[in-house]
């Protein structure tokens, strides 16, 4: 459950201005480059200063402790950036369990069993070092860690941008296999994926956003043309850009 009222935020200049949305359903966030999609996602995770009101599962974001926040919402960045590249896959996935223990305590055996089964499920090797993985595997690793975290809301920021078709399909399946209680938010430029997912649509533009509860009202040729300024074709459930 995400509820946002009159959200304004940005870095040196304002990027989002007076944005509101309330939904308990899965969501795709669309919009041009620099429209403020990631800014919105980071505000939801309290990674940015903001004004306005953000409520997640009936709790004001500002009233949640750092650990409660991590149990409520998490964000998967477009790619893994780590200063320490020697961390093993197992240790990295285990970090997803940090919000569930005292900060000074070691990870429990239960945590390790969960992490190992998730690693196995996503065809990763627990003892590989994260710096040695391909970019596709690193993306999968970030998703695996977020699944271990079991937050009520998971935001995926351009999850397929670095993936080859094989890994894209793997990602799609991983997303589908997530249990329904988890609210999924997907930021993407991949309109084919967005259409196929069938989630509610939030289209971010000019600092604010339009919310389409039924994705079919967004994915029409005229609306896509109006939103992106280029022509699209929609055939057999596949959305594609018309070049030239």
């Amino acid at each position: 459950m995400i509820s946002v009222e009159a959200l304004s935020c940005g870095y040196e200049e304002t990027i989002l201005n007076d944005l509101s949305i309330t939904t308990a359903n899965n969501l795709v966030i669309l919009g041009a480059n620099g429209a403020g999609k990631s800014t919105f996602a980071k505000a939801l995770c309290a990674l940015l200063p903001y004004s306005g009101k953000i409520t997640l599962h009936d709790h004001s974001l500002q009233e949640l402790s750092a650990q409660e926040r991590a149990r409520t919402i998490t964000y998967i960045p477009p790619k893994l950036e780590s200063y320490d590249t020697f961390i093993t896959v197992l240790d990295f996935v285990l970090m997803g369990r940090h919000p569930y223990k005292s900060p000074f305590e070691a990870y429990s055996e239960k945590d390790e069993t969960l992490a190992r089964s998730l690693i196995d499920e996503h065809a990763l090797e627990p003892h590989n070092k994260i710096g040695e993985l391909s970019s596709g595997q690193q993306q999968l690793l970030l998703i695996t860690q977020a699944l271990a975290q079991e937050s009520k809301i998971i935001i995926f920021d351009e999850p397929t941008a670095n993936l080859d078709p094989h890994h894209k399909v793997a990602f799609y399946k991983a997303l589908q296999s997530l249990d329904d209680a988890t609210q999924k938010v997907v930021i993407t430029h991949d309109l084919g994926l967005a259409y196929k997912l069938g989630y509610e649509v939030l289209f971010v533009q000019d600092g604010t956003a339009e919310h389409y509860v039924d994705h079919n009202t967004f994915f029409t040729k005229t609306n896509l043309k109006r939103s992106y300024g280029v022509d699209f074709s929609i055939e057999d459930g596949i959305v594609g850009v018309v070049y030239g």
Partner: protein
Amino acid sequence: MAKQLFIFILLALTLLSPFIGAVDMQWQSLFETGSLEQAIFFDLRLPRLLLAFFAGVILALSGWLFQTLFRNALMTPFTLGISGGAILGTGIAVVLGLNLVLFGVNLSALFGFAGAFGSVLLILWLSRYVSHRGSNALLLLGIALSFFFSAALMVLFSVATAMQSHAILHYTMGSLSTLGYAQVLAAAVMALLLLLVLLRRRFELSLLAVNDEHARLKGVDTKRVTYYLLLISSLAIGVLISITGPIGFVGLIIPHVVRKLYPRANHELIIPTALIGGLFLAACDTLSRLPQLQSEIPIGIVTAFIGGPFFIYLIIKGR
């Protein structure tokens, strides 16, 4: 193999340390009560060895911590201008003629500590304005601060007497000579405090070693943890600098050397970094006092002279 050899050399030089120096030391005379050798061994050389070891622990661990917290391979308390602040503080005390000892604490040492601690607070305050620009901006601030401190020191020199100038210069070179066990105890307490705090916080540090945003998304209050750890390490560094003066290079290179020797995750390297840092400084101290030398070489020069080429070798060789 190279790893075992390196550690063997460090250990051998460390164990040799109390037997090396201007006075030849025989095993047997150690057990003659009241002998000169016994006094030199227990009152001069043993405390010196221990001070060198604990100083190495503090320097290496602080370097490791600063590199981890700022995720920058060049970050150490010294590159952030903290040693510059300590030297300036001591310089001011010397020029003001505050060569007093109050409650067993030398006032100029207290000024050195204040200088070190004050520059940490200054860096922390300044970092609030540049932290969003990444750690390189902070590094540049540290470099600017260092230049400012050394310019201020030059101004001090121009008003100092020849004797005062000599005293300041001597301090800037760093020294492990000690007058007894009180200072060793202070360094040991600080080294142990730093080690225990880092070990206790190793899970949060492992999350921070990925990046700040990552740690926050996993439920770490990164601002609070960062400030807390910087304050503890600055306390340790401030106390140390007030005892030994600034000793460069150990904090910068030891964490990297350890990472090359043991290619593991950062948070598993806390104890190896502490041990190798301590042994490295103790070994360098042995080399600075080889009997063939006409006079002792300042410790900071030995660390750079030995550590520099070895570090270059490690970088070129890669993993």
